[in-house]
């Protein structure tokens, strides 16, 4: 099997750039829809006279106009604490209470209603961003040492490409960004990097053994050689994700969604983007294999 991937490189480059631009645009204009973990919301404590079924309470509130609702027993089976993403207003407690009373069927009393802050602080955003930049820099150095600087650029740009597009899709479609999604994005980074390095590794190896092939053909050949592996690994990962997405229930829905998007983009980018960038930088055999040194013969008698 030999697919001419590099013949499509111009169209693919346009496609990637369009996706990145749309993503950046959406992130700049719409931003991300942060969940309860980041923004905080409201906490409402209620007391029932008879212990309720929490699942019923959850369904009741899910039908109402509330976001991100969690319902927990609070010290006893009749005390219940409800957290939600809705911004705190002085009347929110009573609104929730009237929902819970379910037209007066249930005897329940409001104990407390208050604002709650986010679960992660500002420092996470600041340090997270700093950490990302530092991580990218170290990766660039490592790849430059193990491979060559052009590979550093290719792998880091491919990585940024994947993360930006995944975030962009979350922004564009208004999917909620919570802590599990953050974890998913970090996992995408690991996945994408792993995938790209495997392809780069093959390219490096081929530059050493195939001497008379043009860089474009050689890269094409390398991608074809690793294609089987790329697809199998993506498939096993996607299988897991599809199962988690469709059957895993609400709490891991966003997590698996982010990873589904990330793994698809990551697979695409390891086939098209990194290699494309290598060619764009005019990678040659001499970048990886040092030119043979001219030897000086000592012709002293």
């Amino acid at each position: 099997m030999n697919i001419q991937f590099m013949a499509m490189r111009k169209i693919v480059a346009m496609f990637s750039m369009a996706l990145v631009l749309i993503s950046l645009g959406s992130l700049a204009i719409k931003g991300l829809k942060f969940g309860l973990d980041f923004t905080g919301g409201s906490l409402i404590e209620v007391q029932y006279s008879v212990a309720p079924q929490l699942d019923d309470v959850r369904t009741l509130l899910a039908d109402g106009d509330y976001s991100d609702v969690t319902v927990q027993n609070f010290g006893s089976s009749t005390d219940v604490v409800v957290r939600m993403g809705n911004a705190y207003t002085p009347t929110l407690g009573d609104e929730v209470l009237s929902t819970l009373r379910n037209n007066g069927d249930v005897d329940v009393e409001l104990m407390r209603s208050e604002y709650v802050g986010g679960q992660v602080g500002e420092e996470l955003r600041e340090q997270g961003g700093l950490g990302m930049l530092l991580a990218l820099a170290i990766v660039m150095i490592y790849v430059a040492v193990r491979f060559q600087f052009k590979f550093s650029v290719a792998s880091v740009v491919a990585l940024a490409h994947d993360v930006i597009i995944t975030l962009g899709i979350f922004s564009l479609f208004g999917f909620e960004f919570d802590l599990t999604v953050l974890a998913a994005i970090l996992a995408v980074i690991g996945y994408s990097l792993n995938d790209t390095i495997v392809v780069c590794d093959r390219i490096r190896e081929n530059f050493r053994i195939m001497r008379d092939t043009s860089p474009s053909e050689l890269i094409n050949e390398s991608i074809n050689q690793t294609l089987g592996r790329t697809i199998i690994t993506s498939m096993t990962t996607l299988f897991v994700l599809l199962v988690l997405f469709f059957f895993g229930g609400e709490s891991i829905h966003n997590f698996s969604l982010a990873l589904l998007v990330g793994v698809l983009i990551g697979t695409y980018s390891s086939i098209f983007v990194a290699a494309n960038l290598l060619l764009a930088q005019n990678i040659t055999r001499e970048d990886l294999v040092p030119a043979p040194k001219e030897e000086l013969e000592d012709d002293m008698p």
Partner: protein
Amino acid sequence: MLNKYPLWKYLLILLVIALGVIYALPNLYPDDPALQLSTQKSTTVVDQRTLATAEKALQDAGIELKEAEVTTAGGTLRFNSGEDQLAAKPVISAALGENYVVALNLVPTTPDWLSSIGAGPAKLGLDLRGGVHFLLEVDTPAALKQRLDVAASEMKNAMRTDRIRYRSVEVSNNAVMSIRFLREADQQAALDVLEDQFPEYVYNTTDSGNEFFVEVSFTEAASAEVEAYALQQNLTTLRNRVNELGVAEPLVQRQGSNRIVVELPGVQDTAAAKRIIGATANLEFRLEAGLDANAGDIDTLTFRDGSGRTARLERDIIITGDSVSDASSSFDENGRPQVNISLDGKGGSQMARVTRTAVGRNMAVVFIEHKSRSRFVEGEDGKVTEVRRSYSERGIISLATIQTTLGNSFRITGLDSPRESSELALLLRAGALAAPIYFVEERTIGPSLGAENIRLGVLSAQIGLLVVMAFMLVYYKVFGVFANISLGLNIVLLMACMSLMSATLTLPGIAGIVLTMGMAVDANVLIFSRIREELKAGLPSQQAIHSGFNRAFTTILDANITTLLVAVILFAVGTGPVKGFAVTLSLGILTSMFTAIVVTRAQINLVYGGRKNKRLFI
């Protein structure tokens, strides 16, 4: 010979696997939700009769009991589910009467031989199991007073430099500082100097005929800022304290204007959880008073070690605990215990300014612990209400001679034992709070996910894993079996590491582990596709295996090391959940490399190695 491991390698692999199995084993014994029975009076005891009464009451209420036993601390009633446990609590309380205390608890079921070697199950997260819930209140008026106390010593210094004579400086509890002068000229001169040097305060002048006062208080914006800072700093400190490695999955959030919620997963025993949250204390660094010091400027405090010793300290505070960014115990050049203290920038310069002129004098560290006492008061309407009164206890934890000007980081030496130094470091870290906090409420909290949701999540994780295994089996046949065995061991090793670090498993965490497995087969896929390539290129099977492993190895190494680098940096720079993710990711990479490369190779060597070339089922 090709594809043969020496015996020691097989033994090493077996040893690692055995250790993994042992430390992962406790996860098969999850904690039981239980009710702990104890008595308040010495005249009543928990015995078989008590348990029989309890069992009867449960039977009448239709709640299933798993086990009941009498322990040294009282009695334990174990239940099958958290719901049964919660429903049983009021039933038991009513049946036993008020002489007995009934508390929720999670009781370990790990066999003794496992817990004796430090093995225990990973905790289940707040979403799966719930935990304990604390509400802490930040004493913002105290934060304001504390800030004014520090400002007072700075202002005294400024007035002394300008030779302005003041009689006294007092800071009241409602955050007003009052400086007393005998002459109006001094009052005016002080006002000019202070307004110039400390513009963030509001100044008022009053006089009583023969005495003149300057009253200093915060501007509204400044006091709001101090309060917000105190809350924010305490929130950050608590977050770091309960989640040092990032794998504990607690919930720490602000509630209302001045309170902080801390929820810890997997525990229901509030006393144990309080130990994790740690002391809610403050620190003050102060100089020991000289012999000629004015009696009004001196506090006499006792040492906290219980020896009854006292020391006379200046009222002026050099810095408070929130300037302490870290404290750790170590050993000096001569192997004697010491405590290293790091201060933040502002604290460091303040410390340098004061100690420059105080070399040779003693400096004390005062530990202020904030406690609250509850009393139950019967009101006029006969209703009993709880009245909480907060108070604080001050004690000196260290008195040491200043050897040189101290800056951002300095050390306390001359401690008697490593135990003393580590205790002191612990106290210093505990006191690094910006304002006093008090526990105002403690309760257990149930799981945030419904049983159905949990069942679905766990089921889908299991299905996901099975799908991956089935795929490997179909695609790589016999080699797929090897890969699947390695994958199974990978899960065992990962669980063992997580349990050892007492990590907490949440539903997304479990999903993440399964996902790691989906990715972990990558190494085997790389190796197997290489072997297939080599076979296609016409290599005999033994050589194909050998060179397949060798050539895939550099690829796997490069790919995994780059990812590992990212994980290490995220761990170093990140906080909370990001840190936790980095830990799990790094562990996953290391265990999967071990199983996918070494363990798979060992299996292939055992089956195919050292024999004549035969057909490979790959």
